[in-house]
């Protein structure tokens, strides 16, 4: 019984009940607050998608300046060897230039591939939410959602790297690193995308499933 099966399943919503997303307790649909954990009881409908889109748009808006403005301002030998202002992409190129391919790959992954992948994944999940799906497609969507939810917070690593570098590399004349305005917009972008993923109700993924599979009718 513990293995996931393809048989149609009675959900709380179909039974005219409301399931609590915090603690799992089931209440009559008229209740609005779970009496066990105090969490809000929300029926799995497409209304939550408004919040998803709004947070996602906010995250995307802040992602643009995060890429255009400098993330790090470096000055070496009191500016004699040059001051440089590196954007996210510029920093990756610079790291590759110095032969730090491993670190360059991590930074590229964390600050470009993951955020853009998240925007695409959340948009797709929100677009297809509630649409008819096969059981296999639903499992795939849930898996994607879990990946997005898990990986979202890890993008913040970039902000921490900037903070550590600017706190540490303060060698006066020799070299100093200061954070740029992109750090703030990047942090906000990550936070808003996390909120967007949190507002998405994964129960919507399963709403599109047919009430009975064809096998039952035969």
């Amino acid at each position, binding site marked *: 019984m513990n293995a996931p099966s393809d048989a149609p399943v*009675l959900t709380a919503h179909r039974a005219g009940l409301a399931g609590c997303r915090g603690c799992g307790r089931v209440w009559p649909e008229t209740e609005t607050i779970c009496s066990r954990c105090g969490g809000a009881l929300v029926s799995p409908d497409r209304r939550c998608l408004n919040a998803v889109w709004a947070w996602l748009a906010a995250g995307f808006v802040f992602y643009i300046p995060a890429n255009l403005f400098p993330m790090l301002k470096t000055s070496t030998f009191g500016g004699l060897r040059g001051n440089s202002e590196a954007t996210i992409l510029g920093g990756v190129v610079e790291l590759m230039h110095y032969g730090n391919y491993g670190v360059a790959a991590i930074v590229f992954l964390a600050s470009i591939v993951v955020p853009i992948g998240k925007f695409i994944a959340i948009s797709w999940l929100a677009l297809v939410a509630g649409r008819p799906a096969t059981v296999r497609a639903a499992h795939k969507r849930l898996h994607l959602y879990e990946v997005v939810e898990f990986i*979202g917070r890890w993008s913040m690593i970039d902000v921490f790297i900037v903070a550590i570098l600017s706190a540490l590399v303060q060698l006066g004349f020799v070299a100093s690193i200061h954070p740029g305005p992109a750090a703030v917009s990047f942090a906000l972008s990550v936070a808003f995308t996390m909120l967007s993923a949190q507002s998405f109700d994964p129960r919507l993924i399963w709403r599109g499933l047919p009430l009975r599979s064809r096998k039952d009718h035969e």
Partner: protein
Amino acid sequence: MQTEGEYDLTTGAGLIACPRCDALHVERELEPGETARCVRCNTLLASPRAGAFTRIIALSFTSLVLMVGAVFFPFLEISRMGFGNQSSLFGVALAFSHGALMPLTVAVLGMIVGLPVLRALLLVYTLLPLSRNRAPYAHAVPAFRLSEALRPWSMAEIFVIGTAIALVKVAGLANISLGPAFWAFCGLIVVNAASNAFTSATTIWDAIEDAGMATDGREIVPESRA
């Protein structure tokens, strides 16, 4: 009071809904070591572990002690050509303390120090009476709910990985020595990971309920205590 295996489809008593896919399950008291998964999406529903509460409390205290060390000991030190600089954890957060970047200082401090400490305290507050089979303290319910809501925003482990990457980046530029705070922080991740492995939200909700929180009498009380 509900007996095990009985359920009511009109009020939802004795049922559990999967938080991920809303599938209904008949509630059952699990033995320690058993794991309940959703029949449809395989999401973990509950996994009580023997002695989990005592362990979570112990691990929370450990993480508080380690956090004190991580905050007050030197974190990292670099030197090159006679110029040296050392930074504590506060120094790292204060890197953003110029002008428009100021709010980020607060956010970074919160994510790496404030929230992990707050979560450890909330868990101790919720679980301390439960581990001794006493009634939960007042406001244990909102305390535990807050602790669960803050979980994704407590980013100590991400910070440590970030430190490692930053160190690789600086390694070519200057000499680096790792302070005790760095190692305290590394220990903190291990302790937090262990604590998370023992935490099963559903089990804690059941325990708060069984321990005599004011409920509507729908809780299932294990036979040993009934």
